[in-house]
């Protein structure tokens, strides 16, 4: 069992988190997720060999050094007993466990820590610039891909950002029962209270 490649998204959603970013590193994954308007950093060690406890200590150290106001450690359920929760609690670090069958469980909630207002070093600043550049490139790529795709009225519906009744016709490769179906415009005009 390894945290590498594990799909956290759905499990974290069940705990009220919205997954923002996962950075997969050699020793652990840094998962950035938002809950109640606050971003949290969750550190999940890749290794499950905790006999030496090195990777666990490594993860705790990394978590405590974080700039995030909320930080939690995520370990496989069967090794949770190795973690001394009172130490984590004293540092305001939360503890989560995961299990391939039962998903993610929050054992100890993280305490909101005061942000350290120390100035960013040159390396940290460069990292931020790099991340912004990567994000810009990703957004540009997505915009290009979207402009090539035929319009999908369902997406607009789900997002709720298209005025009612202004439907695009189904795509040309849509099934016959959708094409030229007068019910599409009739049903799209349905209104609450009408």
């Amino acid at each position, binding site marked *: 069992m390894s945290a590498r490649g594990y799909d956290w998204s759905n499990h974290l*959603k*069940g705990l009220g988190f919205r997954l923002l970013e996962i950075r997969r590193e050699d020793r652990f994954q840094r998962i950035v997720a938002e809950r109640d308007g606050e971003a949290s950093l969750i550190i999940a060690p890749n290794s499950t060999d905790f006999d030496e406890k090195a990777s666990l200590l490594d993860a705790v150290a990394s978590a405590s050094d974080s700039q995030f106001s909320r930080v939690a450690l995520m370990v496989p359920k069967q090794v949770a007993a190795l973690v001394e929760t009172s130490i984590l609690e004293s540092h305001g670090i939360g503890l989560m466990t995961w299990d391939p069958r039962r998903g993610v469980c929050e054992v100890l909630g993280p305490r909101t820590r005061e942000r350290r207002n120390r100035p960013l070093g040159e390396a940290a600043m460069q990292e931020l610039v790099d991340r912004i550049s990567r994000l810009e490139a990703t957004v540009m790529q997505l915009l290009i891909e979207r402009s090539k795709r035929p319009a999908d009225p369902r997406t607009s519906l789900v997002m709720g950002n298209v005025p009612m009744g202004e*439907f695009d016709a189904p795509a040309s490769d849509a099934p016959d*029962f959708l094409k030229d*179906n007068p*019910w599409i415009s009739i049903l799209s005009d349905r209104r*609450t209270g009408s």
Partner: protein
Amino acid sequence: MYEHLFEIYRRIDAETRSVKAVTVIPQPLAVAIAHKIPTCIVLESGHGNTQVCPISKYPIRNAIVAINRGGSDANTLTAEILKDAGYGDLAGEEAIVRKVKEGIGLVPLNLERAVRAAKGEPQKYVARFKMPGTRITIDLGEESWTRFLIGEYVFNPNHELYRSYFRRGMQRPSEVRIGDTRFQGMLDFGDAIVHAVERCPVELQPHLYRTVLLSGGNFAWTVPAEFRTISVDAATKVRILLHDKGIEDVNVTLAKSPQYSVWRGCIVYGYAIPADYEWSWEGMEGWAYLH
């Protein structure tokens, strides 16, 4: 019923958080949507019952006519016919009875004429059926004229020829009430359509008669080439019943791909209905959001 369906999905969502919203669509509406017809009558007939639903952009709920008669009633009659023909041992086997109904049952253009013709030339109209994959062969012989009773019974069970079956204990399709709906037993399909249409606004009635859509397994009646002058398909039978009531210019069609039409209608409905159209118990439409 609706509350129960919502509750089922509420429980699924509580466990899996995978159901965002639910809606319920009357089956006739889904059929009309799948066939791209906004104004019509949908006659939906299944195993146990039949309903006539006028639709004009919405199902006209207070005009729906429900009938406590479906394919199972034709099975009951087929079982009686088998008993009379000496196949009492097979009459209790529901699967066999259904196969026999499908294999020998015919819908007559005119019941009296068909029975007279079949009694006059029993060899021409002989009802013989071999159960696929078995040694069972059924031959109604001199009673082959009864094959026309089977199809007629679905559409109109009021002919005096059925009385002898009722007298001998065959259960007559009875009137029942389920919830607020009264299911009539003996109403013929022509009368049922007329009753439903006449509960709708007068200006709408001609438009409703213009398209009658037949849906459901109970309308899958075939017409062998040699009997084309005496037996008809379901659409023609309904047209004749309406003609007898003085309703002309009716376009009766059998739903295409009946096994898929309900699903297709549901897909179009889910695709087109606005996401912010919330469920209303008055309109019985919209999305009931679960989370």
